């Protein structure tokens, strides 16, 4: 049953060193605030799972939180490379990062299989691709009726899934709408879950057949308005495309990255603090990249 609790406490009690952790969100509703809190609390040895690792995973990888990454597309959407991710894979900095690489179809099905308590996902996938040559977790099974060969990959069953959503009611029921991505599956596939929300309301006012996660499926619900920034929450905020562009030069050098993370994340108390310091430095950053 969901406890409505501050994010710091949720991360402290629910995310442990060595856990398999999925922070999901498909451009929309990416849980940046929660990622920052995991960095602040210095988690290590995590297996990070995410279809589209972007800035928040670049930060977590660069800060040394991750031992392994399970993913299907790692880039700065609309901009280019994730420099910290590339540095970890290409140069092993700050340490070696093991990767397990899939396609989107594979990852999406692996979350579905996890939510369905199946040990593996079955799909028509990876045909003609070299991915099965480099990922021993892509195997093939035969249809017992037609003899066709189908791809099989292990379910994703995170220890903790973290997502951001639009709102929760006071009992902790959560409503998500708009681009849904794989968040529902990621939560239902996980042992524990943290949902940061834009606001807590008396009544969700969910339309029929809306994507609602009942309170009893969640571990913690944490009010963090704007907690998806620079991603967005439909109905609440817009994606800050400038930040995605600004991230590129910050992440290019190890030193600039470390200094930026120190100032904006490690030296701030919470996401509101991050946003205050960022506002101060944003004008300067914008001038530099213009």
């Amino acid at each position: 049953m969901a406890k409505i609790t501050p994010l710091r406490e949720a991360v402290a009690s629910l995310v442990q060193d060595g856990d398999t952790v999925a922070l999901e969100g498909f451009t929309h509703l990416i849980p940046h605030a929660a990622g920052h809190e995991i960095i602040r609390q210095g988690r290590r040895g995590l297996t990070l799972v995410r279809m589209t690792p972007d800035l928040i995973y670049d930060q977590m990888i660069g800060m040394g939180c991750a031992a392994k990454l399970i993913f299907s597309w790692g880039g700065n959407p609309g901009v280019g490379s994730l420099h910290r991710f590339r540095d970890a894979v290409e140069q092993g900095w700050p340490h070696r990062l093991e990767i397990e690489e899939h396609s989107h179809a594979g990852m999406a099905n692996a979350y579905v299989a996890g939510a369905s308590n199946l040990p593996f996902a079955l799909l028509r996938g990876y045909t003609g691709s070299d991915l099965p040559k480099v990922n021993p977790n892509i195997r093939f099974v035969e249809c017992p009726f037609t003899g066709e060969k189908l791809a099989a990959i292990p379910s994703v069953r995170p220890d903790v899934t973290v997502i951001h959503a639009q709102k929760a009611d006071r009992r902790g029921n959560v409503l998500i709408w708009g681009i849904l991505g794989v968040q529902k599956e990621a939560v239902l596939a996980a042992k524990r879950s943290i949902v940061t929300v834009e606001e807590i309301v008396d009544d969700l006012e969910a339309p029929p057949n809306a994507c609602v996660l009942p309170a009893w499926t969640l571990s913690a619900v944490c009010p963090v308005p704007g907690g998806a920034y620079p991603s967005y929450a439909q109905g609440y905020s817009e994606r800050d495309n400038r930040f995605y562009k600004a991230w590129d030069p910050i992440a290019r050098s190890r030193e600039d990255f470390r200094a930026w993370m120190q100032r904006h994340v490690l030296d701030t108390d919470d996401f509101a603090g991050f946003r205050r310091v960022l506002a101060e430095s944003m004008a300067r950053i914008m001038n530099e990249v213009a």
Partner: protein
Amino acid sequence: MSNAETLDFTATEIMTVAASRLLKDGTVCFVGIGLPSTAANLARLTHAPDVVLIYESGPIGAKPSVLPLSIGDGDLALTADTVVGTPEIFRYWLQGGRIDVGFLGAAQVDRFANINTTVIGPYDAPKVRLPGAGGAPEIASQAKEVFIVLKQSPKAFVAKLPFVTSAGHLDGGDARARAGIPGAGPTAVITDLGILSPDPMTKELTLTGIHPGVTVEQVKAATGWDLKISPDLKTTEVPDAETLTALRDLHARTAAAHGISQGLAGGGEG
């Protein structure tokens, strides 16, 4: 049209317009972000108002007024006929066999239109780590046909890929069918210099279209293998004024809406 021939346009613009023209009205198109999305939306705003655009983040029948900068922009959701979860997109819609055209970008293609978006150099010790597969492996195998759009250069058009992320025609000939891959595979590669199409028998990419003002020698120089030229080589029709205006208006609206310079409207998922 004689009027339009005097228009100035950039290489990226004619690439986008040429790609856009290939999309027939009513086609169900699975759209990658970046150039494919620009071309597909240009088609929707010009000759193909009933093209159905599906994005992997979940929108079905998206009709964005500005270009999405990411695969999950809010405008995609708000203008779509419906928005489903990402698993459903890949399960019921792509794997379900409902996609006519998969419209992809690429970092590299080889002479049989196989795609690499994974690594340059060895997988375990990459020289350049690229973003990875995304939706492409299954789009490339399950859409009824595939259009690829990317700029042409010897680094991008290589004889042999270091890594095949997504299947084109594999080793050529009937290799794709023999591997049990459904769908016709890539039927066109649209670049800033021209259009390459697989030879009907060998499936080797052949220059079938060349953009006005480009020479065959230029295209050959931008290709990492000895590019065959179709005996029936056609010069791409220049973009007409209306289409160019529609494309430029789309970019201007996008820049204004997103509060950024147009350069950001490049490529990438996320």
